[in-house]
């Protein structure tokens, strides 16, 4: 579709965009810090202790999470599109988002009246997310076989069940409602280094493994008979790729909540640019995921709102998930219209 050279150029462009957005992200906030001072602070060469604290302690975790989560969701979506043979597949279709949110709601409802659960919540979401993914995998495998279409249908059904369970718990315990909203939409507001440490292991394992799965992904993209004739054991390969998509998405959901659209947009954009070869689509989807999430979070940060609470003097940043849904969805429609030849 595109020649190797223009692919390399576009990849480089996306990588540069990610770096620029990363630095802008670190500069933006209540106090604007220009890029040169951000870079000095990042390199630990800054003479201004305020810059050092703001950049390295307060803003760096959120920016790193933007990079990681975007990358994980983009790659997870690209892997799922291969396993499910469907360009509408996205990380939420693994059951991780609804699983994570149900776990969070149950946790918040169960600890009502007790002191705030604090740092425990992301772990609970992580466990729920992984459980959701495993549930979808087991529910869809019949006699040890994973069929792409059955996997999609099962995921939709499991998501519907988990979603309605969440709704029931929330109706019974309205205290959970407020704190769960940002998880439902997905947000990076107020993330700290602890959140980075929580997501990092999943990213460190999932991203390289996901990229190395490119060749298996390419064979899986053929019809089943051709894939088997080339000597790829299809069922184990499908389970492995689905597992990687679950791990990546669960790691992302546990720190950011259910951010939608990145995992759908990034792989589709990557395919529109790079064609079908997974050796290009997977890394490009990860990179585009970073760029999209950082850009959206930059917008989310700058468009703070004053909550409609009379006594509140604070302004609250928009959740990045909301920005992505509002600005990202139209972009996706444009992209899809263009990619139809």
């Amino acid at each position, binding site marked *: 579709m595109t020649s190797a050279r223009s692919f390399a150029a576009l990849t480089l462009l996306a990588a540069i965009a990610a770096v620029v957005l990363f630095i802008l992200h670190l500069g933006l906030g209540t106090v604007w810090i220009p890029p040169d001072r951000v870079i000095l602070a990042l390199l630990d060469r800054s003479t201004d202790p305020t810059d050092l604290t703001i950049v390295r302690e307060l803003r760096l975790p959120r920016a790193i999470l933007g990079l990681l989560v975007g990358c994980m969701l983009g790659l997870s979506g690209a892997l799922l599109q291969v396993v499910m043979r469907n360009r509408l597949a996205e990380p939420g279709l693994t059951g991780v988002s609804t699983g994570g949110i149900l776990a969070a709601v149950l946790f918040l409802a169960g600890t009502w009246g007790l002191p705030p659960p604090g740092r425990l919540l992301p772990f609970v979401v992580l466990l729920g997310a992984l459980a959701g993914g495993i549930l979808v995998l087991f529910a869809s495998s019949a006699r040890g076989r994973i069929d792409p279409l059955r996997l999609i249908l099962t995921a939709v059904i499991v998501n519907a069940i988990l979603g309605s369970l969440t709704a029931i718990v929330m109706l019974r315990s309205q205290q959970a409602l407020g704190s769960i909203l940002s998880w439902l939409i997905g947000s990076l507001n107020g993330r700290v280094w602890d959140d980075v440490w929580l997501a990092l292991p999943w990213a460190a394992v999932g991203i390289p493994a996901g990229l*190395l799965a490119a*060749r298996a992904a390419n064979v899986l993209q*053929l019809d089943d008979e*051709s894939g088997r*004739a*080339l000597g790829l054991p299809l069922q184990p390969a499908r389970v492995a790729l689905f597992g990687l998509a679950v791990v990546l998405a669960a790691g992302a959901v546990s720190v950011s909540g259910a951010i939608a659209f990145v995992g759908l947009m990034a792989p589709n954009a990557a395919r529109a640019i790079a064609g*079908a070869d997974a050796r290009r689509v997977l890394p490009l989807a990860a990179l585009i995921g970073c760029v999209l999430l950082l850009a959206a979070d930059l917008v989310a940060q700058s468009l703070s709102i004053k909550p409609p609470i009379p006594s509140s003097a604070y302004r609250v940043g928009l959740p990045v998930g909301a920005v992505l849904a509002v600005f990202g969805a139209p972009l996706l429609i444009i992209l899809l219209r263009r990619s139809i030849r």
Partner: protein
Amino acid sequence: MNDFEPIRLAQVSAGYGQRMVLDGLDLELKQGTITAIVGPNGSGKSTVIRAMARLLPTRSGVVLLDGQDIRSFGSRGIARLVSVLPQSPSSPPGLTVRELVELGRFPHTGLFGRLGAEGTLAVESALTLTGLSDFVERPLDELSGGERQRAWIALALAQGASTLLLDEPTTFLDVRHQFEVLDLVASLCTSRGMTVVMVLHDLVHAANYADRVVVVDSGRIVADGAPSAVLTVELMRTVFGVAAKIFTNPESGRMFCLPIGTGRS
């Protein structure tokens, strides 16, 4: 490649679920020849090919690959010795010819290996042999049916196997492209000494291109031999249920059998 023992089926039974399709089949391929498998719909033609490449496990009997039980091979090990082109292969939209053909090296590289010099050479020569050198960067979905089929054959060639199994390679192609594909297969047989098995519906093609015709009916081999000996008026009536006449192709001197109707009118 020369001392490779061709595939042999001994008393092979195989099927899907409760339904048995092959019933104690014996068949030994001859190296460097083209064998056509013909038979009515549902006779088990495709199943023979699937059993030969272990795409379908046998219920009883044994498939010998290079003289050894095919069950003792790994999946990629089989794919290095036997290429299969299924009946209706499909590739993701936007995949280019080169990207497809490079997948033919999967049995050699595995999940993480590199294509390497040998792989690049195999891909290039497969592209040249199939006449696709000018199409390498084109997406498969933009090619004509005949070109697309050649690309799939190129993928099978890039595997570097000495046996090529084709399941109805000419279906959905217009008559010129049918000949193009069959000529290509015949030339592979002579230039590379490949052993070819084709499932064919068109008996005229079978008579024209095959060294040997195997007629399968209800999971058994009912006739096996040179086209002129096998494709008789009698066989056409008993196996296919059609009336036929025998002609000689004035170009090749080969006999062939032309079905002329159901014989009921």
